[in-house]
């Protein structure tokens, strides 16, 4: 029987009986382990080296058949001005330029299909919708790991509570370090005494006296 390859001049093939098959197999094993290790290293790298930001957030319970070990985090400030001429498509990956406002919170400057040229920091996000020059986006870091029994504390949140997510950003990728409600970590949300104390302190302070979650020393100076 005649077995002629379609492209006779091209002899791209891998023989399972070849001499170097074990070498190739070993290489593939290493690559697969490297891929696994890279996922962990990437997260750790952002967590350690990322630039810290504080961004307003709202935690939501995640509904799942098997239960989860995290809560969903929604960032209300998810709409900004589209800086490019060509309108984006839904699902397209975009770059959201960020900075800090006077209170030290993260401020969204605008979004573009390309990375900001000015060297300012940015977040990688996905387009949810676009209308009249304004784009709604969604960032990737939208989960916060939380014990299932502590997650029920979300029900006790009030609309006037100040909820801030502490995040770290590096090369567009982000990691949520913690979520604070009136300065109290989300893990202590079930502790009614601590929460009441925090709410009372918040009511007694004026807007300008409100302390930031992180020291000013941690915030890098603005780039010229």
């Amino acid at each position, binding site marked *: *029987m*005649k*077995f*002629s*390859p*379609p*492209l*006779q*001049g091209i*002899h*791209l*093939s*891998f*023989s*399972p*009986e070849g001499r170097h*098959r*074990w070498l*190739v*197999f070993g290489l*593939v*094993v290493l*690559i*697969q*382990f490297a*891929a*696994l290790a890279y*996922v*962990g290293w*990437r*997260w*750790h790298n*952002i967590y350690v080296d990322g630039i810290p930001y504080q961004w307003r957030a709202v935690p939501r319970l995640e509904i799942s058949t*098997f*239960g*989860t*070990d*995290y809560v969903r985090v929604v960032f209300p400030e998810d709409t900004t001005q589209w800086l490019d001429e060509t309108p984006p*498509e839904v*699902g*397209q*990956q975009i770059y959201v330029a960020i900075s800090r406002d006077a209170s030290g919170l993260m401020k969204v400057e605008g979004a573009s299909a390309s990375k900001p040229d000015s060297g300012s920091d940015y977040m990688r996000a996905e387009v949810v919708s676009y209308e009249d020059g304004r784009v709604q986006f969604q*960032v*990737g*870091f*939208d*989960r916060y*790991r939380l*014990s*299932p029994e502590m997650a029920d504390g979300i029900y006790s949140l009030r609309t006037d509570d100040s909820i801030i997510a502490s995040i770290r950003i590096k090369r567009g*990728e*982000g*990691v949520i370090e913690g979520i604070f409600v009136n300065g109290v970590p989300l893990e202590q949300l079930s502790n009614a005494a601590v929460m009441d104390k925090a709410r009372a302190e918040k009511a007694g302070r004026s807007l300008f006296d409100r302390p930031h979650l992180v020291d000013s020393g941690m915030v890098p100076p603005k780039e010229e």
Partner: protein
Amino acid sequence: MRRNTNEWLDHKVTDWVSKGWITEEAREKIRKSYGRDEQRTSFLTPLPLYAFLSALGFAAVVMAVIWGLSQLWYYVSVPARMTLAGVLLLVTQAGVGLAMFQKRQGSAAAEGIALVHCLGIFVVLAMAEQTFYIGWDAASYVITCAVLCLPVVYFLCSVAALVVYDLSLLYWTASGGPVNTFGGMGLLWLLLLLAVPFYNTLIGLRDERRLSVFSWVMTITVFIAFGLAAQTTEYIPFLLLGSLAVTIMLVGYSIDIHQSWGVPFRWFGRFAAVGSLLISCLPFAWDGIAQVQNFHWTTDLVTVLLFVSMAGMMTKTVKKRLWSPALYVVIPVILAFETILVRSALYSSIPLILSSLYIVVLGVYETAQGFKPDHQAHLKFGIVIFVSVVLAFVFGTHFSPLAPILAIIVLALIVFQFRRMQKDKKTATQRASRRAKLRHSAARVRNDDALAAEEQAPEEELPVWYSPEENKPDETVEEWMKDVRIPSPAELGLGESGIEASSDTNSSKAGSVPANTTDSPMVFTLSVPAESTENDFVPPRQVIRETTEAVPQQMAVSQEKAKEKSPAVTESPWSHMKPEPKRKKHFTQSPWSHQGGKSE
């Protein structure tokens, strides 16, 4: 006993061994070869109830375990999670390595191990991504897993893993993965190309079954991926589609026509090529091309590469089957020409008319092919082409007066071709029936010849030495001999018995008529007397008239028959002549018979 069963095969093989056709060793090999079928049939038998219930129970237990683990998952530390992931990956890799070590590539076990390995990669990577969460991008996750699963396709020659790889690519494309990835659509084609060398691996292993699966899976994947990718583009890339389709079709034509794995390449290629041409018959498709703003380097580069591939295959591998591939190779050439016209701002009706006319040509060609025996698929394809053209004209364009004219031309061509094919078919049938007669046995042929000879034979039976070929007028005969009329034995009053009698009685006077012409070829020899030849010279004509014994009898007979058989075409003055009076036969002795001392 039912035919085509293992029992029947056993019986037949044993019979062959007893007849000595095959050896015992060959019998064992044959039995071994169809033993797989036995396993397969037993596998396909209905599962017993307890096995079904066991599977159901096992699934329920697994679900419960997963649910329990999910409740405890938060309390599993990060290092423990990663260790678990690493161990899982190592186990599946060890399975692959063991299968390689035992050289079980291409077996059912290898397929299972490859699938488990793929599943392991998906699970392990999901565990890592969920633990170190920076955002869940399903498309990125799936494409990473697909790339990591690809090596096992080659290691274990697994088409199951190939299916996983192709499905992952399709999911990635459908979820918009190429849009957000470096390289975009180019990366998709590159990832598809990574699976192509597996074809050569299977060719090396001579695994026909997997080759078929490979060709079907890859062809379908390529076209679905193309369709999904085209959804996100701002125009319909039918030039790229046409080039890709014809390239795939030529790959199919490069494969031996009798091999099953070439079928999907050829047919999917044909369909897609005609599809691209059909799209180019619609005005809105050209509007999209005209409105393209930027120069698409990736698309153009891929198109050029496909053209080079087509040229290479046409000149090297597609030699024997020229016409059909050549007709389809024209499609991308036409589309490229039309694209250049449109992109050069020479937008007119030329692309639409050219594409429409050529698709009609293809339709006629495929329909005509369909009238050949065992080419019904081409007929159906031709009909589909025509129906598609009509639908495209009706729904895709504004009604044009060109349409009915075109339809009339097409119908006329079809009718003309149909009649021609019928005529050819009739001629071929007649020829085949004639040939079929020639295929009979020698005995049958002899009988037929005998019957034909009986039919052709005159009422009066010809003598056994009669040979029609020898009765033809001989050009080498001397002129004076042509006028000689030699009476037949009947005229001479010599029947067969008479001849025999005369030969017996007058053997000394007359040369005997040979009983068998083949045994004793007749040679007419004149015995010239040794003495007084000059004085007793008799003109040959006279002598021959009178001495019938020495003349070959077939010559006489033929002249008689020639006179009877050939009627006068024109009225000859000789036709009114009275028949020659019957001469009285004189059986005189030859003057030569007394000379030379040969006879008394």
